[in-house]
């Protein structure tokens, strides 16, 4: 059955895009295959691993559990907006300093989830940091170094106002 395609307008990292897509296209696939933004990684594709985390209107979301058509009019932020190889963003720099990544597959999802955390969550204790990070899976680091990076970022940020 051919699906009725839908024309979609979104903003990704401040750049406006318009595309005509099938309703069933996942936001993760849209970002990677339609826009070529392959920084957003797909791991489990059923909302468990967190690798595909992006921000929708400033809040973290699984892009594999969001349809691209649901993002109509939404401000999307992806890891491409958080820095580049030549100019690391602050979170990426903290990851580098603390060895908070090894293979790097999960890293884009962590960077985006941490962006949300730093904007909205108190992160006053290691317990809170670990709870906030618990939706993202990393199979290399054992998390210690990621917690160290977030602890530093949270200290740098100071208490939420």
């Amino acid at each position: 059955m051919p699906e009725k395609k839908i024309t979609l307008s979104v903003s990704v990292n401040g750049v406006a895009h318009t595309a005509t897509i099938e309703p069933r296209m996942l936001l993760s696939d849209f970002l990677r295959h339609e826009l070529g933004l392959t920084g957003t990684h797909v791991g489990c594709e059923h909302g468990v691993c967190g690798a595909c985390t992006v921000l929708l209107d400033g809040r973290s979301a699984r892009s594999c559990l969001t349809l691209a058509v649901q993002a109509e009019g939404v401000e999307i932020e992806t890891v491409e907006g958080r820095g580049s190889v030549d100019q690391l963003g602050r979170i990426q720099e903290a990851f580098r300093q603390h060895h908070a990544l090894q293979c790097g597959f999960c890293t884009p999802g962590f960077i985006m989830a941490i962006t949300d955390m730093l904007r909205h969550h108190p992160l006053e204790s290691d317990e809170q940091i670990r709870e906030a990070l618990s939706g993202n899976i990393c199979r290399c680091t054992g998390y210690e170094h990621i917690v160290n990076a977030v602890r530093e970022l949270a200290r740098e940020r100071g208490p939420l106002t």
Partner: protein
Amino acid sequence: MRHGIGEAGRSRDDKAFRDISEHSGAHGRTMPESAFPIDGSEMKPAPFEYLAATSAAEAAEALAAANGDGKIIAGGQSLMPMINFRLVKPTILIDINRVAGLDRIEKHGERLRIGATVRHRMTATDALVHRHIPILHDAMSHVAHLTVRNRGTFCGSVCHADPAAEMPMMTLLLDGTIAALSIRGERQIAASEFFVGSLMTSLEPDEFVTWIDIDTLPPETGWGFEEFSRRHGDFALACVATTLRIVDGVACDVRFGMMGVGETPLRLPDIETLVEGQAISETLLQDVSEALKGLLQPNTDIHASADYRRHLAGVLARRALRDAWKRATFRKDGPDA
């Protein structure tokens, strides 16, 4: 998220990589309109139509027109995994996120009304919930993870009716009423009539939930919420939620709910009767543990055996009732303390 739903999906990166190689350099081809196009056979979900409804009535009409093959989507945190695995193949997906007025928590008399698009994040931080149903506020800290809480909804979780999820149990514990809308009108369903099996509710195929009402609790109410899961945020192996007040030195208005130990969330009137009119003592808690063993018929699965779950139920029940008693004592002495 539920971990038992299936194996982790294969990444498509190998395919994307092949496409990158094909589209780059050697053949001098220009990039196609789409960066690394994928066709339908590579998409996770089966095809469906999509409607972003702007009113509840429009959603109800579309759902009726789908003849039982339509699905409503709000947060999508339970539905989308099932769609990605093609366990659910709707012909039309009706999105209610843009329906005005469903994203509110309001107090109506002694009840809180939670709209269909209220996210877990909102329930977790809402001042009315914190003030009037502190046990629900507590329960929210066990719900999934930050990113899932940003999207997932209270009502959606109740409709999904996972027997090990917090919101269905809390709706049952707080004598919830579920408002089901269809083109035939609104039907109000008591929580006790709503959960009929694992992932099964008494909603008709053309009905969807627009709001859920739950009891607020008198300020002197004490509560206990004890959940055990393998990892924080995962579904519970067992969980107890209980509330009570102390009048003349004994427990009254006792509510006792459980999840993770049956096909549906549970209210256990036998336990409520056992505790009602009694002061909490070690003997009473021992009696509760013993009674639970006879009342529960949990499953054995990959996560835990039935015996282990029964044991866990007793341990959690004792802790939760002790907490509820302590809090009720404290709040009776000074509810604002």
